[in-house]
């Protein structure tokens, strides 16, 4: 066998490792989740009881699915105007300037801050503000967690929509300027419509990030294993309940946490696929 063939075989077989890892992940999560699904059946998705008392054990993913959606949607709504403004700043108004360079470096750095540092800052800086405003139980809750999540996902939403906005062809914009349009009108009638799907994809990917964030949410959401009654009540997300309850878990409880991990994996997978699909269509 010549060396080129061997090289090709090595490249191919090493690359198959990543498929093996992904396949193994799905297999292990499903296998680990089976006891919980068998025990609770469909009620794992519909009941709202999380009761670890021995003999009366009952677990359900519903409170955490709701908690995850509440925090993530809230984060997205808060992040939306901020990252839209930033991407206009970077991709339209000040493209290529020093100011844009500084802002984009800082936005990128936001993505580099570890989740646990966000959690600490949220706990010691944001939470006291929430207490002063009378929000949440001692400042904890869905709202506080959503607020910190918003800051965390801004860089993801901004970087994609900024690139796409910067890609809108100049002659399209110039045509609008030549008709006497102001900059705002150009943005409204040319830039945003042309970049729309890319901007949407950026927000979808950012949403996927928000769903899986763990530490900062764990430190701020208040850790109550029930469906949050309002934006200001305590709750748990899928990621935070795994982090919280894992320490003392075995048997059925461990299986339930793995099942929640599986649901989380599937949800983020679908959302990321959707975002990438929209971007690919756009290109």
């Amino acid at each position, binding site marked *: 066998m010549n*060396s*080129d063939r061997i090289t090709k075989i090595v490249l191919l077989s090493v690359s198959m490792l990543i498929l093996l890892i992904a396949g193994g992940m799905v297999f292990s999560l499903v296998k*680990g989740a089976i006891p919980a699904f068998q025990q609770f059946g469909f009620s794992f998705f519909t009941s709202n009881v999380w009761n670890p008392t021995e003999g009366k054990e009952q677990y359900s993913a519903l409170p955490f699915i709701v908690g995850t959606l509440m925090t993530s949607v809230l984060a997205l709504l808060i992040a939306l105007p901020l990252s839209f*403004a930033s991407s206009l700043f970077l991709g339209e108004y000040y493209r290529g300037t020093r100011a844009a360079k500084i*802002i984009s470096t800082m936005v990128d750095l936001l993505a580099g801050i*570890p989740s646990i540092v*966000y959690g600490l800052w949220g706990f010691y800086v944001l939470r006291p503000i929430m207490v002063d405003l009378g929000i949440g139980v001692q400042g904890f809750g869905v709202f506080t967690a959503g607020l910190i999540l918003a800051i965390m996902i801004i860089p993801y939403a901004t970087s994609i929509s900024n690139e796409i906005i910067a890609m809108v062809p100049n002659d399209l914009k110039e045509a609008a300027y030549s008709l006497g349009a102001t900059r705002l009108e150009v943005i409204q009638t040319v830039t945003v419509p042309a970049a729309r799907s890319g901007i949407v994809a950026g927000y979808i990917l950012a949403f996927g990030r928000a769903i899986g964030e763990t530490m900062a949410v764990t430190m701020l959401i208040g850790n109550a294993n029930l469906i949050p009654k309002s934006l200001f009540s305590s709750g748990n997300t899928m990621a935070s309940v795994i982090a919280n309850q894992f320490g003392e878990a075995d048997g059925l409880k461990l299986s339930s946490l793995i099942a929640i991990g599986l649901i989380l994996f599937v949800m983020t997978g679908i959302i990321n696929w959707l975002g990438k699909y929209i971007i690919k269509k756009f290109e």
Partner: protein
Amino acid sequence: MSMEIASNSHYRDHSTARMTKDKLFLGIVIGLAILTISPIVLIIYKLIVKGIKQISFSFIFETTPNTYEAMTALASGERIPGGILNGITGTLLMVVMAALIAIPVGIVTGVYLYENQKKKLAAIVRNTADIIQGTPSIVLGLIAYIWVVKHITMGFSALAGSVSLSIMMLPMIVRSTEETLKMIPNTLKEAALAMGVPYYKVIIRVLIPTGFSGLLTGILLSVSRVIGETAPLMLTALGSTMVNWDLSKPTSAIPLLVWEFYNDPNMVDLIWSTSLLLMGIVLLFNLLSRQFAKSRK
């Protein structure tokens, strides 16, 4: 006549209104952009102000105190003794191990994707890398728990932590390798192939050296992403109060210590300095990778 003047002034009013709206919008954009970046300034400021006074020689070269020692120091108004050496060595051990697993596999897979751009199997590998990259780190922690803690080391271990971090790093290295190689002019590769150089030598002698700074950028960025990871380590490495170099034993890490200090009222003073150090390391890798990315252009 009067009609014409009226409509003219109406036109001017309308026009100024449009101008004002335009300016107002720009003001809002600038304001919101500044608001967006303010957290990074506030967070770093807070870390420095609260953390700098605890950082000292012993903070880096001694292991963590137990809660009783911390309590006595607090009660007598002294500085909390000890440091975070066990976390520093643990992070070093686990990140280096994760990099040793992820870098070779990631680069080879990246080369494969580059060489087989149009193949269906390559598209599947690429999409799989994207799926893994989007997977929440806590889920990767669960996976490493099931695979390593339960089946290989039979208990919490540094190896399990490394495995979870390496799965996180892998897709980032794969994609950055592919993107880097795509930018290398084909003529370079063709020149080498035309001289009859074997394929593997073209990869090792031409592609990888030419794309070196790009590969390094991807690796440094992926390291900066995993250094701060806490959640997967909670499920795998667990933590330890001693310096541990044994891959099969529970091991601490800097972010794990932040979590421990956060949960122990006696140790609160150590939170900020530990986070400051963690943030400093993360930023260092981040800026280094940026530097290499710049030197390429």
